[in-house]
């Protein structure tokens, strides 16, 4: 297993390199001059724009720009934002904990609800719980994020005044305020994934519960709770873990709309602003981070498989 993990970690390097090249090419190929964009409607003096392009090295040929970027990146310097002049690494690390907090809370909420309600829905098929769960699933995938977010703000922030209408408060400064402000955006972000996960847990468990080995377990007189928790769950969770793993990797992208609605200062908002503004260094940094998070999460998923199903082994076969 150790060798397998090491092999996967080493494989991340060429993949990251490939991702950096593809992203670099794509963003530079997309129309729009970043200098002209952040001049916007204010100043479009071509002399000034040309001077700024030269200052930022944007007048160099693309391969030269990439090589310069790569040289610096290998030393831990991912450049500076073209818009704000903030170092890219600083911009990302400043915001990443906030995105992780929001994404983590949403994932935890999603997983807990999916596991609990999905299990009940599967065990008590066609019951009230099952029907409600199905309804919630449909609502969760149908309601757009931005709409749900605004509705939650209006209802719980304005009408009932239970939660603040957005914003972020540092946990270290005021943990209670931080958690209060986390509730609505976490629910918003969790809505679609909860629906998906709940459905997956339910159908996966239903499939496993109908298997012969569980009929044998029932015939032997085991309680239903023991059958579900000890024998059915582990097998049912294998496909579910795949989806969870992908959702972990997708935390960065999923938070984009939620962070904008709730003015949560995370990486998602940074990504949107940077893509729209053709802020090449920042986009490069964020996409690289996103790729690495996907790779890390799929590695964790693969390792979990081995724990869930002892038949799965990553040892290399001897001759």
């Amino acid at each position, binding site marked *: 297993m150790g060798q397998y993990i090491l092999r996967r970690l080493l494989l991340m390097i060429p993949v990251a390199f490939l991702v950096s090249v593809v992203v670099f090419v794509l963003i530079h190929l*997309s*129309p*729009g001059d970043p200098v002209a964009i952040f001049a916007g409607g204010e100043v479009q003096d071509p002399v*000034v724009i040309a001077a700024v392009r030269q200052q930022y090295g944007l007048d160099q040929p693309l391969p030269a720009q990439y090589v310069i970027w790569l040289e610096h990146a290998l030393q831990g310097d991912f450049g500076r934002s073209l818009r*704000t002049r903030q170092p890219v690494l600083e911009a990302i690390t400043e*915001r990443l904990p906030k995105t992780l907090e929001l994404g983590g809370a949403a994932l935890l909420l999603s997983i807990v609800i999916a596991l609990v309600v999905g299990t009940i829905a599967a065990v008590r098929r066609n019951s009230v719980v099952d029907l409600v769960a199905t309804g919630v699933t449909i609502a969760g995938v149908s309601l757009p994020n931005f709409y749900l977010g605004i509705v939650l703000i209006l209802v719980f922030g304005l009408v009932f005044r239970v939660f603040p*209408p957005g*914003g972020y408060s540092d946990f270290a400064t005021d943990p209670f305020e931080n958690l209060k402000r986390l509730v609505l955006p976490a629910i918003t972000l969790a809505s679609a994934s909860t629906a998906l996960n709940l459905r997956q847990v339910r159908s996966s468990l239903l499939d496993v519960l109908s298997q012969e080995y569980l009929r044998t377990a029932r015939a032997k007189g085991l309680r239903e709770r023991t059958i579900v928790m000890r024998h059915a769950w582990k097998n049912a969770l294998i496909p579910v873990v795949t989806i969870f793993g992908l959702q972990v990797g997708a935390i960065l992208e999923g938070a984009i709309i939620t962070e904008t609605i709730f003015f949560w200062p995370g990486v998602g908002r940074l990504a949107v602003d940077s893509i*729209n*503004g053709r802020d090449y260094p920042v986009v490069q940094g964020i996409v690289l981070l996103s790729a690495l998070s996907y790779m890390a999460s799929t590695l964790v998923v693969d390792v979990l498989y081995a724990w869930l199903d002892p038949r799965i082994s990553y040892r290399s076969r001897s001759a």
Partner: protein
Amino acid sequence: MRSARYLVAFLGSFAILLAACSGGQQPSGGGASPSTSVMATPGGTMTFALEDQPINMDPLLSNAFIDRNIHYQIYDSLVRIDSSGKIIPWLATTWDFASDGKAVTFHLRTDVKYADGETFDGASVKWNIDRYRTTTGSQRSGELASVDSVDVVDASTVRFNLKSVFAPLLANLVDRSGMMLSRKSVEAGGTDFTRKPSKAGSGPFVLTEFVQNDHMTLEKNPSYWLKDKDGSQLPYLDKVIVKPITDGTVRLTNVRTGDAQIMNNIPGKDVASLKTDSTLVYQQKEAYQFNSMIPNEAAGYVFADRRYVKAVSMTIDRQQILDTIAFGVGAVGYGTIAPSHFAFDPTFKPYAKADPDAAKALIAQIGAPLQFELLIVSGDPVQLQEAQLIKAQLEKAGITMDITQLQFAQILDLQNKHTFKGMTLIGWSGRIDPDGNTYDWVYTGRPNNAESYSNKQVDQLLDHSRATTDQEQRKSDFQKAQQIFVVDDPAAVWFGFGVSQLLYTPKLKGMDIYPDRLVRFATAWLQK
């Protein structure tokens, strides 16, 4: 019986007296108007919900409208405007133009220090202006292109030597081009000066915290030079926290819940109800901002024949666009000179009524039907709605308009290269002097002249308007030029002007509203 009648009469009188005391003094409709008769209470923290994230705190490099909302709190300019748009003394107390107009001497305040303790003086003015004029990549160089050099006459007197007479100079010095910063703080800040707290300004507040996409904290400048009429030190507020909230509904919710005390840029759909909401104060004033459709008039494109531009201008119903899209918030417009500009002509209404029949006749004269593409920014539902309304209006004149949605970056690219096929929907935040709304947009070869428009007479009139400080002469020049580039030989289709807006809690006093859509908190205070 008699005693009962007396009792009723007494109770009735008492009721009338109560009604007179409680009902008569209350404000109607939109709540309390800004009150200055009550003594201001110093202290307190106010949260301002701003429509977007400020990016750059260096006036040298800043090119986003939103940045200026912060600049005006932390920096002072040589001159400023009052709430009517009139230029008033600020760091410069008086100024004298040379008889030939090629120099202007500013007499400076002698009681101003920057927040870092450095003294504001003639040398500081020279350093700042030279920095704006000559630094590579300066976004202010165009605005100060008329300045040849700056001489320090003495510590409180500087002379700007101009290459030629340039009437809009004072207007440019109101804004970023005239903002004075401490050299010591700017140089100490280095590359990070644009985005980190500093004490470089002499304004009412000092930027003490700047967390991107989260908040900015402005704290009272204890050595601010401005005092109120009673001689009390300004500002009154101890702290202003600025929160960038891009969604208008969320911004409004924050003000309603008290998480923010003031916001700008109120969604049009909410204005009517807010005007009658006594729990909040709504203020509105005509602004310099304009909205327009910019055609590509370069050779080979359909609008190279400007009669087509005129046909579009004749057909659209500007009032309907204002009422439907902006919920009536704003003003109908036909050109670049806004109602708040000194050169505005309220009788200039060339297309007061939409006339699709006249447009049809004009197109028939040209001999070929008009079909063109309108580029709008993707992901903007309001712009899409606006485009759809315009499309429906143009159909009445037999004009076919296809709507294409692209990213802002792509549209800008096509505009800068003058390769867009039809028209784009463009707005401009507006400038104090009508020259700032006009020159770069219609003068031959200028940066914002995306339409590739050129008319010698317009160029001459605009050059003449720059070369004289006689306001009446300038007014005449602008109005004659406008007649040409709007009606006789149209450059674009202008259809409206925006408004400045503020919405705030009645506890907030001392807020004035300005036509440049920027906020000023120096005189704001919170009633306890």
